[in-house]
């Protein structure tokens, strides 16, 4: 929508691209977040999940993966289209793809953490945003920064490594924290 609204000024569009795409990714991951555990909580399935034989963090990771497949992955898949709209050169489009593939899973995990912490709270959606937006700042900075560096024709490897490190940390630790938050929510 942005390129349609802003007009066809190539330089301006190129400069905005990284930030706009990342804010869009953040919004996409936030929108469905509130319902990630709310349905299971309301119909009692979450109790059964807590008592299930697979470890809770594994089930949580599966749910977050499903969320990412529906929000983060489509975002990454349409990057070629976005690249065309923003007049990006090929290296920048590749950079955008890499940064979204590495960064959006972290957003999904963080959002799920917010959803677990606000489970059963009325108006939880707003709280999730308040809790999670500050935590997603590093992802946003490195993701959008990497795209800008690619645009300048330089090597953005350092950004991708940092994003990758964030992703690994998030995958390792956040499911356990979510599991704990869910246990507390159901006590």
């Amino acid at each position, binding site marked *: 929508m942005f390129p349609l609204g802003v007009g066809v000024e190539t330089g301006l569009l190129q400069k905005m691209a990284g930030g706009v795409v990342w804010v869009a990714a953040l919004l996409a991951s936030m929108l469905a977040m509130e319902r990630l555990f709310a349905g299971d909580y309301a119909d*009692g399935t979450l*109790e059964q999940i807590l008592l299930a034989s697979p470890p809770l963090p594994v089930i949580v990771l599966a749910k977050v993966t499903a969320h990412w497949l529906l929000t983060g992955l489509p975002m990454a898949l349409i990057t070629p289209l976005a690249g065309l709209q923003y007049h990006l050169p090929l290296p920048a489009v590749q950079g955008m793809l890499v940064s979204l593939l590495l960064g959006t899973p972290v957003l999904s995990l963080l959002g799920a953490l917010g959803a677990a912490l606000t489970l059963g709270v009325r108006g939880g959606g707003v709280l999730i945003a308040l809790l999670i937006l500050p935590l997603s700042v590093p992802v946003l900075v490195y993701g959008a920064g990497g795209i800008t560096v690619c645009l300048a024709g330089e090597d953005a490897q350092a950004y991708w490594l940092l994003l990758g490190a964030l992703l690994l940390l998030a995958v390792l630790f956040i499911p356990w924290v979510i599991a704990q938050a869910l246990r507390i929510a*159901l*006590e």
Partner: protein
Amino acid sequence: MLFGKVSFDLPEGGVLLVEGRNGCGKTTLLRTLASLRQPESGVLLWRGQALLRQLEEYRRDIVWLGHHNALKDDLNALENLHIASVLQHSTNCRADAAEAALAELGLYGYEDLPVRFLSQGQKRRVALAWLLLTPARLWILDEPFTALDAAAVAQLQSILRSHLHRGGLLALSAHQDVGLDGENLFHLRLDDPQYAAPVEDEY
């Protein structure tokens, strides 16, 4: 705190029947038994060992059915039973066994209908059909008779009785006669003064 000094021993084929007025802690006690929450004080033993040391094995050996049926509205009855089976035992239950269980509870012909189109009592029956499929030994049922008609109540009673005769264990709460009088029944009236919560010291 809701209650204290509750102590009981459930032998094979034994029933724990929790009764009492609303809000006296029946659900809390059963949720504690189901390991969904920890007791403030005291200890739970399963086969003579502390529950916390063997949570995984214990959870494979129990069925918990709370106020909610834990059914997904968009899935049909068979799929819901499959989910329950995968969650508890990590395997799919056999389709013909699941169909037979549903048929026994009077849901023949409703297997392929999304659960959202079923009535409250029928949903409860789907949830109860899981009891016929699970090999779990301890059934923890929180007011299992709600929303059921007279025929279904009688049927559930006979299901519970045959579970007990196989040496299964049962803990349930109810407001009406559960029809298990001949069994090894342990009555727990939670609103009895002897179980009153200890008065907390004030400073």
